């Protein structure tokens, strides 16, 4: 599960461990089951995508891992601790669909925010902000205000901010959903490069199949009503991935596999007998 090119520091302990997680919302209209029986274990350094249609609870699941909402029942562990302990210990970096930059802070000050909150002293802070902005290739935009940047640049600032605390776990909630396809592909490559460089664990929520396959080491396929993980597909494309990856045979196979899995529960490992599935099996081990 860990990519072959990176050493795992604590192989025994998963970065994220979810056991029988359930989530029900109480509303005036009645109870809604958002998530049922979620079981998922993510090793340190993995890049796992949660994919599924709107309403399948993928963002809810991300927020449960990030301790922004409490599950109705079930166990949520992050690096062997409770999600709450992990949040208080500032082990998370979060990137939302909107960049959520503060208008009154320039790029530099926005990235500095988490460092201020943890009380890092000024000189180290400045060095760290500079390093982060160079990582997302925005070093020359330190003094710009958010309204002076394009949507893609704003989201890169948000990524730099999320990485500033060197989080062991990066949670990304459809970060590129609002961007055009070209920008999205460029930022996908950038996220992969950052992931390689930092070695952080990533959970990435998306409803783009190509994005999920290109980025992930594993793709968790979710369906709605009630929200559940119906399949976890290992996307064992060679690392490091680049533009050639997007054109490789194996990539298309994986895209097809995820798509079919999304289309119906039939596409589940054991249940399917479809012709394209047979073709996949003939070409190598799947899932």
């Amino acid at each position, binding site marked *: 599960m860990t990519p072959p090119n990176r050493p795992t520091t604590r192989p025994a302990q998963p970065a994220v461990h979810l056991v029988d997680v359930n989530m029900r919302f109480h509303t005036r209209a009645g109870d809604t089951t958002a998530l049922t029986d979620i079981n998922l274990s993510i090793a340190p350094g993995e890049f796992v995508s949660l994919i599924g249609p709107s309403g399948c609870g993928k963002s809810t699941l991300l927020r449960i891992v*990030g301790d922004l909402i409490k599950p109705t029942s079930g166990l949520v562990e992050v690096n062997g601790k409770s999600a709450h302990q992990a949040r208080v210990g500032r082990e998370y970096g979060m990137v939302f669909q909107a960049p959520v930059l503060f208008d009154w802070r320039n790029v530099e000050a926005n990235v500095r925010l988490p460092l201020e909150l943890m009380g890092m002293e000024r000189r180290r802070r400045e060095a760290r902000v500079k390093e982060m902005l160079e990582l997302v290739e925005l070093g020359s935009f330190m003094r710009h205000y958010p309204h002076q940047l394009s949507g893609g640049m704003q989201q890169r600032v948000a990524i730099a901010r999320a990485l500033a605390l060197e989080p062991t776990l990066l949670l990304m909630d459809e970060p590129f959903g609002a961007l055009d396809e070209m920008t999205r592909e460029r930022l996908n490559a950038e996220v992969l490069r950052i992931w390689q460089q930092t070695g952080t664990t990533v959970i990435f929520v998306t409803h783009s199949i190509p994005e999920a396959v290109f980025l992930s080491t594993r793709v968790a396929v979710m369906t709605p009503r009630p929200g559940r993980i119906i399949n976890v597909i290992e996307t064992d494309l060679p690392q490091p991935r680049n533009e050639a990856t997007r054109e490789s045979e194996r990539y298309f196979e994986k895209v097809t596999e995820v798509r079919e899995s999304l289309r119906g529960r039939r596409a589940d490992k054991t249940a399917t007998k479809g012709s394209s599935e047979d073709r996949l099996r003939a070409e190598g081990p799947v899932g």
Partner: protein
Amino acid sequence: MRYLPALIVFAVVIVLWEMSTAGIGRRVIPPPSAIVNAGLDNLESLRRSAQATAFEALGGLVIGTLGGMLVAFASSRWVTARDVLLPVAIATSAIPIIAVAPILNNWFGVLNPLSKMMMAALLVFFPVMINVTRGLVEVQPASIELMRSYAAGEMAVLRKVRIPNMLPFLFTALKVGATLAFIGALVGEYFGGTSEVLGQFVLTSMSSGRFDLAWAGILIGAVAAIVAYLSVSIIERIAIPWHASVRAE
């Protein structure tokens, strides 16, 4: 040059006014030239009056702003405070301001400028309280989530999100409040007090039949209020250059 059309309209109105009042009605509606002349003849007295009124208005602006912000901070922080303070605060805005002027004069001393400041403060209080409350409360929910993901406490959220978010709202209220403060101070002055203030200047000019001088007093009051408004705008530009309302077009 953005203001050129406005200046032209203003000039045309002045010219028409001057021409139409050249004949009859000279005493009740004096032509602009007469007003300016009367003002220049009594410049020293006008200056002292305007200065005293501006002092009262600015004092009222400060008191009203502090009061409004205090209530806004309390009611945005504690639900009980909101339930107790908000109805009272809204009730104060329903008070007919002219009716309380004599009472405030009585409470704070008719000769004490504080009585006029309180009149101004009463008018300034409400817009400041409403706007600052909105600025503190209407924060992007995602901003709060972001802060929570960093395990930030209520104080950090207040300092780093709510207060900066509130500043544009505060300046909007201050711009309204700057002109309201002059109205409050003048109304207070009409109900008695020291003689060297704009309100009394207008009243005594009128009672002695000097309408040109009365108009000069009113004009100076308007100019002072506009100067106060523009000063707030300039401070706003310096304080929140990042905000959409202030960015260079």
